[in-house]
């Protein structure tokens, strides 16, 4: 596609619910990143894929967070047993190469846990 597509755009979850956030990167982009952005803050790294391989998941806050990219294209970020502190905008970005090019971000998913 022309850009990075994320869905849903908004998600309201009750505390304790599981959620799944989808990212459809630019076709052919090898690298895919997930970031978490709290209100008024810069994006914080969560995890990074190169094709289907998850090369870095050091930013995932807890074992309730899980990400996958099984076929090297679409990625899903899953959060189990959501907590209020999980409320944030979750941004997905893709790039032709991790270190050489700028990232193209999607519009993000705003998650609100009530």
């Amino acid at each position, binding site marked *: 596609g022309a850009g990075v597509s994320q869905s849903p755009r908004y998600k309201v979850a009750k505390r304790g619910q599981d959620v799944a956030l989808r990212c459809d990167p630019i076709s052919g982009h090898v690298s895919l990143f997930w970031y978490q952005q709290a209100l008024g803050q810069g994006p914080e*790294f969560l995890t*990074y894929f190169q094709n289907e391989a998850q090369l870095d998941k050091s930013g995932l806050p807890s074992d309730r967070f899980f990400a996958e990219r099984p076929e090297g294209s679409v990625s899903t970020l899953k959060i189990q047993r959501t907590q209020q502190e999980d409320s944030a905008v979750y*941004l997905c970005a893709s790039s032709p190469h991790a270190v050489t090019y700028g990232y193209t971000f999607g519009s993000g998913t705003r998650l609100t846990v009530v």
Partner: protein
Amino acid sequence: GQQVMQIPQYQHVQEGEDFTTYCNSSTTLSNIQWYKQRPGGHPVFLIQLVKSGEVKKQKRLTFQFGEAKKNSSLHITATQTTDVGTYFCAALIKAAGNKLTFGGGTRVLVKP
């Protein structure tokens, strides 16, 4: 902990004036990128700097990478209302792996 610091956190600018925002790190950076995020929007890539002392211009925006590759600056001349938004620097830090570490951003408000 945050390895990339941006100052100022907020910048109120009169339309037509110039301003500069700074990005600093205690660590040598492999490269630095700048992004702009409009209110309610997502970060949009502006530019990448790789070489020590590199200077790049985009119309009214001038980006500079420090000689020691530990800092960078963004200078905007003749500010316009369209410059409103948050400007983030993002650095590739070798020790941190192949992902960008973002600064906290400089929020720019323009007074007409």
